[in-house]
């Protein structure tokens, strides 16, 4: 039963992409042209707001905290990495080795 519902829904989805049922104008594909133009505008709006937000966030700057004390649950090392004692993206603790 459930699979039948999913199957019919899927095949409906497949069919609607062939010939959209919502057709308010005489020209085929008018609906999609309208939707495409609408989503193009939404995209531009999104890009504009992201740019504005980026300018604001990146200009703010941020504070750097001090290094925490060496709690036992920080900087855990159970064995060496295949490439050596230090992690790839961290302050190097064993530079001289």
């Amino acid at each position, binding site marked *: 039963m459930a699979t039948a519902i999913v199957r019919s829904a899927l095949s409906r989805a497949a069919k609607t992409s*062939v010939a959209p049922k919502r057709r308010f104008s005489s020209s085929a594909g008018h609906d999609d042209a309208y939707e495409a133009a609408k989503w193009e505008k*939404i995209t531009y709006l999104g890009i504009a707001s*992201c740019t504005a937000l980026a300018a604001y966030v990146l200009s703010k700057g941020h504070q*750097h905290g001090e290094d925490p004390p060496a709690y036992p649950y920080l900087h855990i090392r159970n064995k060496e990495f295949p490439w050596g004692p230090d992690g790839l993206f961290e302050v190097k603790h064993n530079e001289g080795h």
Partner: protein
Amino acid sequence: MIESQRHSYHLVDPSPWPISGSLGALATTVGGVMYMHPFQGGARLLSLGLIFLLYTMFVWWRDVLRESTLEGHHTKVVQLGPRYGSILFIVSEVMFFFAFFWASSHSSLAPAVEIGGIWPPKGIGVLDPWEIPFLNTPILPSSGAAVTWAHHAILAGKEKRAVYALVATVLLALVFTGFQGMEYYQAPFTISDSIYGSTFFLATGFHGFHVIIGTLFLIICGIRQYLGHLTKEHHVGFEAAAWYWHFVDVVWLFLFVSIYWWGGI
């Protein structure tokens, strides 16, 4: 479609790619374990396996594209297969991410005494959610809007606009990944800094990896749209990429709210 065929199913030709993919996966797994433990030749076997896997992916998908575009085997009935497959794949991905959210919630809702009984653990300087993560939050949905624009442009038969829309989608995706990379580089904690670092980088790292996969998928769609592979009636590959992209987008929203924002308070 071959004239003599009286049904709409695609009877596939024998292919070497399933076995080559399996061997690649085996070499990758064994090589990966050898690399992470002190075995000789681990790195070599791992690289060999990955090269094998990537090669198999390339030629297998190349074959599928030839079967659908040049040979016309992907009838309406055949298209149901990849649709079901894509949906099930995304469902499995939902479960995959569910596990990471579970791990993070499990560790943060009742913080263990070993990390000071608080979340975030004492000594962890969390990233401010209202800086880069907040900036990244409208970038992904904008990219989702652009992929919807591309979809309607394809349906309306506006081939060039669809390419532009996909370029916009991919550019926004790259900006997102760039910001994530920047944030990772500047992060004051690492994956080995307590359960916080482990759950944080596991969840956000796998999300970033999925963003990169989705970006590659969309780039392939853009190239195929440019080459005229995608038509009004037939663009299953694009639809799968769009579904996948929306999925990655939704995962980000959950990451932002539960790990960056709530998890950092």
